[in-house]
């Protein structure tokens, strides 16, 4: 199973609304990963995103699904700024996972 989520469709041109990130996470990302499915986040038309938005979107999937999330989450049409923000969240989430102190 492979799902593509067009971020711009839900979050607009600048992705900052964490409520929307949470909704996408709960309704699309988590159920798909739980079936070992693949999610492609398509950032076409999105010029920027906040760290809070990306954290709300992917931190819980990384925490709960670990390597499945790393293997099955893909990002396309991502500009350099958003790429950096996603990378930051990936790095600190892995630091947190190692310490096993992340909290739901």
């Amino acid at each position, binding site marked *: 199973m492979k799902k593509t989520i067009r971020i711009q469709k839900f979050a*607009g*041109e*600048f992705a*900052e*609304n*964490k*409520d*929307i990130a*949470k909704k996408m*996470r709960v309704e699309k990302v988590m159920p798909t990963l739980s079936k070992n499915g693949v999610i492609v986040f398509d950032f076409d038309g999105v*010029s*920027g995103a*906040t*760290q*809070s*938005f990306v*954290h*709300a979107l992917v*931190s*819980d999937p990384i*925490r709960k699904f670990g390597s499945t999330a790393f293997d099955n989450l893909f990002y396309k049409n991502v500009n*350099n*700024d958003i*790429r*950096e*923000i996603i*990378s*930051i*969240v990936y*790095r*600190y*989430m892995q*630091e*947190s*996972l*190692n*310490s096993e*102190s*992340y*909290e*739901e």
Partner: protein
Amino acid sequence: MKVHLSNQGNLRNFQSFIEKLDFSVPEKLEISTHNKWVTVHPANLVMVAALALQVGKENAEIVGSVPSSGAYLDRMGLYNIINTPSPFTYHKKEEAGRFVPITQLKTADDQSRFIADMVPLLHLSEENTTIVKYIIGELVRNVLEHARAPHGAIVAAQYYRKTNRVSIGICDTGIGIWKSMREYWHPRTNMEALHLALTPGITGTTQKEGGTSENAGAGLFFIKSIAKITRNYFTIYSGKAEYTLLKHRSDIKGMPRLFADPALDQHRETGEVSDFHGTLVAVDISLHETTEFKKLLASIGKVYDEAIRDRKKAKYRVPKFV
């Protein structure tokens, strides 16, 4: 309550602004201005606006005469929320300045709409637009999520052509930083709470590294760091504590060094000012000092990672040598 708007309203002088605040009669707001010239930063404006909204329009007024430069207060929308009619008249077309007037945001949808509509008002390049959106996005979200502020977030911004700078102020009359940090971090003072809020990886929603599924404790650290890299001021005021990051010296070349510990930044702080029940955050961004946003984020992210790693290391068990 009494607020005085002086002729030196900027973040460098913000401490003198809050030293003159008088919260002694909380049901009423009296605003006075310098009698010859009034200059306000968005920080001053949003603070006055937040207090005016708290007491209600009928209980907020400007006392004494306002100099001609006070027309700016009208343009920024202050007279719309106080019980004093504006003495100023000007042509509406003059309003096409590069500013975002006082705006009240209560929901995430308000925030999204505001961010989409606001930026064209400042007429910035795409790169600079991203930074402004980022800052407002994170700061307003903080208010909506953590402040429990009945009047929401009050926002204003101004672009200054001469200095090529954007100034942003965001204020709420919610629970304040100390209360939002109290449950998990037990700060003893308002100042300790501010330091915690500025430390990367520390959020008021948990004591665990990495935060929760919703919060990572990165927002304020990122914004303070953006101000530092662009060599400008960042101010936060809540309860009796105020912290202002001072301008990084322009004669020191290269990207300013970022610190996880806000105490290590060149700053000014006081824990003995008037007790403000709410939070104000303000930042100046010098656009000509803005490096590529990606590089700026990379530097901030690096310090963030190191901070988490260092705190983890501090908790490591050590061998028991006997």
